[in-house]
């Protein structure tokens, strides 16, 4: 074990940094653009120079690099202010699923455009009656000639409004046990019969959507996995979701919390000198460092070709509530001013307040805290599942409450 860059790694890092220094767009080059245009501008520039999707094979638009290079690239890129990515779902979740289940032709058609950012993908999994209980989804798929006809509703679909394609899990057979009757597709979001309605979230924006399907036709060729095998395919997607979310940095962290504690007073001294503040910072550093080094261990395992297992649930389970706690703590440090959420007046343009208002979503998106803890208990530790009212019976006989 060592953390020094090897000679090759150091050379890679230097090359990456040199390229970034010369090519990261200045803020005024993209500040006036919309979120999607700005993200596309940056992604395309990386792609054209061979810096997109470091670990993907070159023929799919990647760099053909390894996991360590991916980490080094991430470290170097994060030192710059770049347009926020809108490609996490497409590159982090749809792409690995396509790599595992799509035809060669499809991979050649779709992966390079995912890498270049020309096409954006969304994840059409959750439904009003199926969030944590994803396998309770009801959107119906029926075979009709060479097509499937889709009817139903998805909800919470992040980025559906700007996506070109989506990955979709449907119920093709309601008469068998719930995990057995699912079938997985991808589709063009511009298909006739797809209707997208934005949902406003408590943090103010409307990044997620309701998506309605009315007699939407999908060619059978866009099915991923066998008919009835949709749950297994979905798990491939979800496992990769863990890997991509767990690695993400949080807007409020030990660094900016510490800087704040150095600026404000508590009991007549800089807050950073206060014992309670120090104890909190220590706790949060233990969590941050623990997650970082856990992700290094995961990366090392991935570099040996292993897929990230359920133990990766720890990243989100620790990271999301931590972001919420830290945001509240920082607002407390500002006393009365902590409740001001005004970019012109708030410390760091209101990042603490924004994090307070968006962190509840982090604790829910991609599997709630409770589901993450269940995954660790059941899939990692092997503890028995809860008593289940939905096992071994046909889906259409499972109790559903009022809905």
């Amino acid at each position: 074990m060592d953390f020094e860059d090897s000679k090759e790694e150091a050379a890679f890092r230097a090359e990456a940094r040199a390229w970034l220094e010369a090519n990261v767009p200045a803020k005024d080059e993209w500040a006036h653009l919309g979120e999607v245009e700005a993200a596309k501008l940056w992604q395309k520039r990386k792609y054209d120079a061979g810096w997109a999707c470091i670990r993907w094979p070159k023929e799919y638009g990647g760099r053909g690099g390894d996991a360590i290079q991916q980490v080094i690239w991430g470290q170097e890129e994060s030192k710059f202010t770049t347009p926020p990515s809108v490609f996490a779902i497409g590159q982090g979740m749809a792409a690995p699923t396509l790599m595992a289940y799509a035809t060669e032709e499809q991979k050649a058609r779709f992966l390079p455009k995912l890498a270049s950012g020309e096409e954006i993908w969304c994840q059409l999994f959750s439904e009003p009656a199926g969030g944590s209980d994803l396998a309770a989804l009801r959107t119906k798929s029926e075979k009709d000639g060479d097509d499937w006809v889709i009817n139903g509703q998805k909800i919470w679909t992040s980025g559906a409004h700007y996506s070109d394609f989506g990955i979709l899990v449907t119920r093709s057979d309601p008469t068998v046990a719930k995990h057995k009757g699912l079938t997985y597709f991808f589709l063009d979001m511009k298909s006739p019969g797809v209707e997208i309605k934005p949902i406003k979230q408590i943090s103010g924006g409307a990044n997620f959507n309701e998506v309605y399907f009315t007699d939407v036709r999908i060619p059978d060729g866009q099915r991923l996995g066998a008919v009835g095998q949709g749950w297994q395919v979905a798990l491939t997607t979800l496992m990769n979701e863990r890997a991509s979310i767990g690695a993400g940095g949080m807007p409020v962290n030990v660094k900016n919390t510490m800087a704040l504690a150095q600026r404000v007073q508590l009991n007549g001294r800089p807050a950073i000198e206060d014992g309670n503040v120090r104890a909190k910072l220590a706790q949060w550093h233990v969590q941050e460092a623990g997650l970082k080094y856990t992700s290094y261990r995961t990366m090392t395992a991935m570099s040996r070709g292993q897929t990230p297992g359920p133990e990766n649930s720890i990243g989100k389970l620790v990271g999301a509530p931590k972001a919420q706690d830290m945001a509240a703590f920082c607002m407390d440090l500002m006393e009365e001013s902590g409740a001001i959420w005004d970019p012109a007046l708030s410390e760091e343009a209101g990042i603490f307040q924004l994090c307070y208002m968006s962190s509840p979503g982090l604790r829910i998106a991609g599997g709630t805290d409770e589901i993450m803890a269940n995954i660790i208990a059941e899939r990692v530790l092997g503890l028995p599942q809860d008593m289940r009212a939905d096992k071994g019976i046909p889906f259409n006989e499972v109790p559903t409450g009022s809905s």
Partner: protein
Amino acid sequence: MNFEFSEDAELLREQARGFLQQNCPPSAVRAVLDGEQSYDAALTAKIAEMGWNAAVIPEEHGGLGLSYYELCVIAEELGRAAAPVPFSSSVYVATEALLAAGSDAQKAEWLPKLAAGEAIGTFAFAEAAGQRSDLGTRLANGKLSGVKLPVPDVDAADFAVVLTGGDGGSLALVDLKGSGVQAEPVRMVDFTRGHSRVTFDGADAEALGASGQGNATVDRLLDRAAVLFAWEQVGGADAALEQAREYAMGRYAFGRPIASYQAIKHKLANMYVKNTLARSNCYYGAWALDTNAPDLPLAAATARVAGIEAYHFASKENIQTHGGMGFTWEFDCQFHYRRSRLLAANIGSLNLWQDKLVSALEQSSAA
């Protein structure tokens, strides 16, 4: 021992709850959240008609002369409803400041108007991020200068009690409608409670209480206000628990109500425990407030710390219990998540009150 509210107070609670269900349903909170107004003016007027502003103002000044138990009950119900009204700033702080430090003339001028709902007051203590020190605002020769931020309820208020700097600090009473006062709205985490940045540029003002006594007076005022804020927090925390309970009973996952999962049961049980500890501490706070007990600083800090923690926990875990729905603008979970943060900041944070609590403990163990 009798550790209960009087029948009169319980009757008032029933009446207050019914009144707010009728006049401050979630749609009223939402109207302020989504609208241009910084508070619900119609509700504010109706509350004044109910006499709530007058509750503890002595009869000689046009008030009802009720006990603080009644005001605690009102605070709890306002908190439960997340009412978007300029009440706490006026009733728990500005009115109390006049009662505690006002001259006879000042009391005669403002208290009858406050009692009748013809005037609303607010307070302006803070100036910048972090704890108060070296305040820049000054009163000299009847003129007030300086910048206060954030000041609650300026849109509704007629006057403000302002803490100025200098040795020991001093309080000033300033007419907000007069010249030399400029207010700009400031967006808060809770959009349903208007706050502003107020610039005083030689505004006409008078001293409230003796010069150099401001900090000491504010400390006593905040002890009193803390009990009332804590009651609002307990009301809000219970409302959040009830929302969570109701949703958990009706929402199914894996063929069962989510309420049947232990993770959810324990979450709700933990809310109940925190709320109950806070409520009981608030009972003691109410007694200490009403009797002006020597123990008030400890009782107030205990209620405040418990109130902040209970409301924070209940409001965030209520969202969590609702899953994705809890994160939507359309659902009402956000009301309490926003309000809990505002109330936690309004009269000084958890850190400050934890410190006050332990100082009070030290004092009582030294006595």
